[in-house]
């Protein structure tokens, strides 16, 4: 019994920290509808800054905490300004994706400025004491007190101040609020500042309670998002209830079962709640997208492309020839890297298909790639002579099944909520790979020997793998072009362009959303299978959240619905890190900046750019022709 009480107490302490982080996310979300993914990075910077102040300048904990919170708040203000002013015409979903870019960039900044090593902050109260058989750690109590104070202060702000009132008004009905003179800009920026200061404070708390390093705050953020889902996304009290619930639950799980399983359970919990009770335990606001008329369709990402057949056969042939010829040309990177590039292109195509036809952001495509990669690795490890097409198909099928599962359970979700569900998938898949150690090799992953094409033909040498990958990519592209012109593709287009009209024309939005997701998953799984053949190794962490973000970047760079864009985007995200490999971390900074820039300047990517130029050229031609006519007509008179 005392163990249980002990564990509950522990859970409340860590839960309070999750709640504080969650509050930071909620405040911005409620006021601006943007999910701030960079919250964790700001907290990390704050934690390191506090450590620096305490170690380097000898400042006491309290002072370091306050300074770190101020800096964090200002940083948040800058991010908020970026999102509010520079991305002013983008949808909240697009803005949230932009914060992913900020997350990447700030992560690099933190590593550059503060180094890679984790640090533990000095604690003002150390040691532990016993009361009635229960051990309390001095610092744990201190952290809990600070966390609950922060929670209390936040509620005071929300309930009792004018700013809080403004935030609540904006959250419930933006137009009316603005009509009553509430400044969207000022309130939003104030929300960003306060929320980031809160997040920064939590970074310091975690830094002293556990440690500061470059991954921990992201994990805490994840748990806080879980807390928000549990408590009811979008309410402050939900954040608190959810945070405490997740903290206690995970603590009990750690104490009685295994610390390893608790992750699995928490993420499965997220998915379960998103399915059955998307409003969370407390949430009142309906978060599911009504399929009714009236509300506008959930805001989508930039204009999708349509997988047009290439206009010039010769330019296509030139690109194809180039790809075929790469092994024979002097190439700056190993052929292996180019093979990875082509396999990545397959993955990019899969996400491009999804984003183009459903307008959804999937943060979880890495999970589908992982499923495909492991399927092939497991098959090859058990049955080394398996012909390649069996492994490829099996991987596609496995990923399709997972995709179908996720698609079915997230039918009522869209936008941010769908994105979170896909995020949860990444961690669920990771956990499964970690836990079923006997099959999957656990953290060490699976190694396959030299892969085999059929029976006796061994795939040694990079060239044969390169060509195999190129052929598969070509087949995938051909299949996509055919598919998008088929009745299935037409239904997808109908659902994308005007879902209500589609529904009223007998095209079921739900089943087509699922079918789009299933096809996308199958292709992603295929990509994963290819990657296993190329890299001959798979681990649970290879295709993680970062990978998924990079794939999103590739889709946006190339423009969805464009095969050339997909290849270009894939080339960017797979070759740049290789080029930069000896000065690591720079990739993150570059990609983060690239993502934000693209969203601001060219959200439809390269494809959009090319189409835009073409339209302009055509317009000029038409105007020219028209003016010729007029001149001609005039001269005839």
């Amino acid at each position, binding site marked *: 019994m005392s*163990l249980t009480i002990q564990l509950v107490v*522990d859970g409340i302490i860590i839960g309070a920290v999750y709640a504080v982080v969650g509050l930071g996310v909620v405040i911005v979300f409620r006021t601006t509808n943007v999910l701030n993914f960079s919250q964790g990075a700001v907290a990390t910077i704050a934690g390191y800054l506090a450590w620096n102040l305490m170690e380097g300048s000898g400042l006491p904990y309290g002072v370091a905490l306050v300074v770190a919170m101020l800096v964090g708040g200002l940083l948040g203000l800058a991010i908020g300004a970026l999102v509010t002013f520079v991305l002013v015409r983008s949808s909240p979903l697009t803005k949230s994706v932009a914060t992913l870019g900020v997350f990447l960039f700030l992560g690099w900044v933190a590593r550059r400025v503060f180094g890679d090593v*984790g640090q533990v902050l000095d604690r003002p109260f150390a040691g532990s004491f016993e009361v009635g058989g229960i051990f309390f750690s001095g610092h744990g109590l201190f952290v809990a007190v600070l966390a609950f104070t922060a929670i209390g202060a936040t509620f005071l702000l929300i309930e009792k101040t004018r700013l809080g009132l403004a935030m609540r008004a904006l959250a419930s009905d933006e137009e009316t609020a603005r009509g009553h003179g509430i400044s969207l800009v000022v309130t939003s920026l104030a929300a960003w500042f306060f929320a980031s200061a809160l997040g920064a404070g939590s970074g310091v708390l975690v830094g002293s309670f556990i440690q500061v390093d*470059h991954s921990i705050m992201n994990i805490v953020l994840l748990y806080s998002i879980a807390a928000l889902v549990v408590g009811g996304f979008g309410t402050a009290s939900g954040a608190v209830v959810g945070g405490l619930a997740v903290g206690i639950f995970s*603590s009990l799980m750690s104490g009685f079962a295994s610390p390893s399983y608790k992750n699995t359970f928490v993420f499965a919990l997220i998915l379960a709640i998103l399915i059955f009770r998307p409003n969370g335990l407390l949430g009142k606001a309906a978060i599911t997208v009504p399929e009714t008329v009236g509300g506008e369709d959930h805001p989508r990402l930039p204009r999708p492309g349509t997988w047009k057949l290439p206009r010039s056969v010769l330019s296509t042939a030139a690109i194809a020839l180039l790809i075929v*010829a790469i092994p024979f040309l002097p190439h700056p990177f190993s052929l292996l890297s180019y093979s990875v590039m082509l396999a990545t292109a397959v993955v990019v195509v899969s996400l491009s298909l999804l984003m183009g036809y459903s307008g959804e952001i999937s943060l979880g495509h890495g999970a589908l790639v992982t499923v495909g990669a492991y399927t092939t690795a497991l098959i090859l490890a058990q049955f080394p002579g398996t012909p390649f097409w069996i492994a490829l198909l099996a991987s596609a099928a496995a990923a399709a099944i997972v995709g179908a599962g996720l698609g079915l359970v997230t039918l009522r979700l869209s936008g941010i909520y769908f994105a979170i569900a896909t995020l949860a998938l990444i961690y669920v898949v990771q956990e499964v790979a970690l836990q079923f150690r006997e099959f999957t090799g656990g953290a060490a*992953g699976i190694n396959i020997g030299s892969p085999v094409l059929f029976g006796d033909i061994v795939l040694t040498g990079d060239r044969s793998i390169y060509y195999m990958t190129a052929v598969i990519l070509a087949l995938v592209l051909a299949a996509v072009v055919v598919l998008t012109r088929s009745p299935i593709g037409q239904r997808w287009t109908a659902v994308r362009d005007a879902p209500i009209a589609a529904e009223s024309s007998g095209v079921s939005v739900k089943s087509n959303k699922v079918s789009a997701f299933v096809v996308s998953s199958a292709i992603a799984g295929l990509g994963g299978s290819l990657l296993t053949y190329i890299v001959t190794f798979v681990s649970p962490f290879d295709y993680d959240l970062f990978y998924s973000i990079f794939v999103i970047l590739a889709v946006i760079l190339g423009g969805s619905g464009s095969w050339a864009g997909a290849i270009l985007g894939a080339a960017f995200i797979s070759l740049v890190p290789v080029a930069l490999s000896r000065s*690591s971390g720079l990739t993150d900074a570059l990609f983060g900046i690239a993502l934000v820039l693209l969203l601001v300047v060219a959200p439809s990517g390269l494809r959009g750019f090319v189409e835009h130029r073409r339209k302009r050229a055509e317009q000029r031609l038409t105007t020219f022709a028209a003016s010729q006519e007029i001149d001609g007509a005039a001269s005839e008179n």
Partner: protein
Amino acid sequence: MQKHAITRLVSLVIAASLVLAACGSGDTDSDDTTTTASGETGATDAPTQPGEPVRGISDDNVVSVGAWIAESGPLAVVANIANAARLRFDQANDEGGVNGYTFDFTSIDDQSDPAQTVNAARELWENDEVFALVHPYGSGGMTAVEDYLRENDVPTLFPFADSRILFSEEEGAPDNAYGFVPFYGDTIRLMLEYAVEEQGIETLAVLHSNDVLGEAGPDGASAAAPDLGLEIVEEIGYDAGETNFAPLGRRVAESDADALLVWSFSGSTQVIEAALESGYEGLLVLHDGYRGGFFLNSLTALPYDLEGRAITNVWWTPVTESDSEVQEYVDLFNAAYPEGDVNLGQSGWIAASLFLDAVDQTTADGSELTWPALKATLDSWTDEAIAGSRGINYTADRVGATQGKVRLFEDGGWVDATDWVTYARYTE
């Protein structure tokens, strides 16, 4: 239309040049052959003729060696190892080389990410064409790369990884691999033996990370426990991303085990602290990383009195001892890297020294340096002791380190709890 024609022309030109280039240039990548790299490039046991180029050694006798060592990412402290190794090679070069050979050491940052380790290995072996790998770091990476190293017979010298990966009993050691780290299981057995004999422990709790390194903990403990009459009462594995250590500490305290074996890299001090916070009072059994520097500091920073309550093990002489060879390293390292961790870096220095020593023994009589010749030298070692290492013996198996020592926590540091002991496996 004119635009169209130009596009057509350009495309034709590009296509034509591609075809020409394809016919012309050779191929620098590994080819569709079924022979391994050793068949192609000469790193076999067949002796090369004098005057023939030796892989990895340039015409002016610069020996190219390399390793993957995390310099960024969560294990970035390990960069100290690369620095120390490079320091040793630079020292040798500054002294005019070894019997006419100078050395070029390349370390590739794999960020302790096994996927990147695979790339690093290929790059070193296929692009940089090194003579040998010297002291690559990381158990996770080694697991990923093992097959590749075996298939290509890559000379792998003194890797810092759990030896049971490369030197596994089922598969046998690869021909060209020579170890550095004793089987972690042996070091665990050594410490547990001491704990049973000197401190009379009967029950053991094991706390470890869920990764290749961490899993050696419970495996080693359960291998040794029956022989020592030890009962394992609790085993907890946690993930790298753990944020809530308190429950783990509670479970340890609840188990009331006489000793606690902690086997992990990240989060290890946090779990120790969590256990102590929960009132755990038994003996702490810690991996060799705690011998000094980063880990030791974090341990002593804890507000708990660990006097006589913690043990660790070493298989070379640590920097705190007044061994002259070791002190030479300490002085040089601290001069070059005042902010660095001289404790952590030490293995790099030792590994480099071992290599240079082997080169010296091979070429002292004027013989040419080739891999088979070096290999023969290594095979002859029965009790080599360089730069602090001891008892390096490659005649039994090629794991190398055959002796270790248990150290006890006293006065904020470590003192010898035993003398040098040969691991049980080599005395049977």
